[in-house]
């Protein structure tokens, strides 16, 4: 546990000197801010202050989508770069278990993303202060929980793939391809098959996310994201171990 924290701490602080991390933070906050402004404008033009409470679903689903786009760039270097720089030799000969290394790497980037997500919280809070009845608190919490779950899963898959490659670019495109499959393609058979298509819907990140984002938080949804997280970490640990035997 202590080793995981040591690795995570170093990784977290590395992000604050990495240009990619700043680019990601900038894009995420700018785009979320723009959507927030548009939401405010549409509320004020509708003049329907007495009707439904303004919801934050647009913001949270957007954050989740952006995370899907940015994750490959954030995770590609995590382990691939250690292998390329030779520092992997240092970590693999330190008294550190392979899974501690992988979990530590994941935790570091996860904490970085959590920091960004926490910054975006100012948008719903401002919205809450502006709109008369306030925002829908349940929808907001459910939406943010969805964002956190999807971040955990995507980052873990990215770390796992980064452990397979010693080339960052290869890790980037493989992660991207996997996300495209999990986000859009895997749910497609559900619309074509006459029956039994639910399983594909269950496997699709976007459909799982949209149900959480719409406030229907289910145990199966949470388990889905946690399983993906575990899978990514398992693949990463195994890849590190296999590397030793080669």
């Amino acid at each position, binding site marked *: 546990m202590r080793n995981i924290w040591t690795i995570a701490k170093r990784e977290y602080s590395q992000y604050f000197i990495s240009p990619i991390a700043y680019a990601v933070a900038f894009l995420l906050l700018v785009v979320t801010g723009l959507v927030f402004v548009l939401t405010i404008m549409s509320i004020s033009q509708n003049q329907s202050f007495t009707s439904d409470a303004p919801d934050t679903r647009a913001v949270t689903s957007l954050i989740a989508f952006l995370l899907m786009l940015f994750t490959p760039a954030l995770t590609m270097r995590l382990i691939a770069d250690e292998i390329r720089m030779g520092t992997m030799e240092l970590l693999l000969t330190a008294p550190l278990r392979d899974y501690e290394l992988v979990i530590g790497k994941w935790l570091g980037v996860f904490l970085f993303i959590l920091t960004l997500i926490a910054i975006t919280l100012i948008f719903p809070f401002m919205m809450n202060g502006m709109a008369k009845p306030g925002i829908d608190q349940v929808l907001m919490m459910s939406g943010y929980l969805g964002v956190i779950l999807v971040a955990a899963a995507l980052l873990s898959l990215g770390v796992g793939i980064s452990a397979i490659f010693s080339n960052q670019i290869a890790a980037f495109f493989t992660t991207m391809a996997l996300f495209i499959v999990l986000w859009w393609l895997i749910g497609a058979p559900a619309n074509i098959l006459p029956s039994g298509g639910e399983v594909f819907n269950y496997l699709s990140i976007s459909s799982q996310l949209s149900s959480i984002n719409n406030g229907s938080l289910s145990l199966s949804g949470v388990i889905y994201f946690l399983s993906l997280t575990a899978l990514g970490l398992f693949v990463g640990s195994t890849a590190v171990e296999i590397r030793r035997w*080669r």
Partner: protein
Amino acid sequence: MIRVTDLSKSYGSRLAVDSLNFEAKQGEILGFLGPNGAGKTTTMRILTGYMPPTSGTATIAGYDVVADSLEVRKRVGYLPETVPLYTDMTVYDYLKFMADLRHLPNADDRVTETLDQVGLLDRAEGYIGSLSKGMRQRVGLAQALLHKPEVLILDEPTIGLDPAQIIEVRKLIRDVGKERTVLLSTHILSEAQQICDRILIINKGKIVVEDTPENLQSKLAGAQRVQLRVRGEADELAGKISGLAGMQEVKVLSDGSIEFQFAPGKDLRPEVAKLTIEAKYDLLELRQINLSLEEIFLQLTREDLPAEEPEPEEEAE
């Protein structure tokens, strides 16, 4: 402290380490000598728990490198061949990170102490990326020394250093080696000669010879070779010398000095000196030529040399 039994490692079909056997005691500096690709780095990587062997076993302080890998890694300080450093970290932060990974209780003190030991205290706040190659090497060494390991494994520790730094690092290794076990690899033979208590020459994954630097030299020198320098023409004298009983080979070198070789067991130098004086030559120099480790090394690792001869020696160990 280190015990290696029948250790082999193959990469695909290529056998990098071929049933290696050796031991190192506490307080011993063992030199690992061999050409590139001889299997030095592979052996070290197995000993540090970086990769498992294909067959055979290795133990460090009684712990198996595969089964008790974590225990081994706690006790070993390792400086890999390409010093692994995070260039975007400061020297201090890097060592602090390594100290934390090793759960050192007084990490800050230890980092400062080690930095002082390798002479980098004034660069503690500098970024590793801005350091020279020699300084990086010393940061790597600091990382290996940080936890006062029982066993220190150094892969080419003086490579890329300038002469003054090489002397410093060698002194450091000797100091550390007084109470700890050091295994270092090098292909600078004089270095092994200076630092090591015992030398292990390895080629193509096999131990070619294992001995102390002194024994290695006398054993391999075989016949005694002596150089004689006199004033003036030496050809006539050379003829007289070759007439001595037990003399094997006499030749006049291009600089006018005479080099001769006689059978081991009988020292012919006094006879040669007497002869020279009697022949009314001015004797300038009479000197025994030691076969340099370079020559020994070349002899031993030459492919045409039969390899079976040295093998009984490693069994005797």
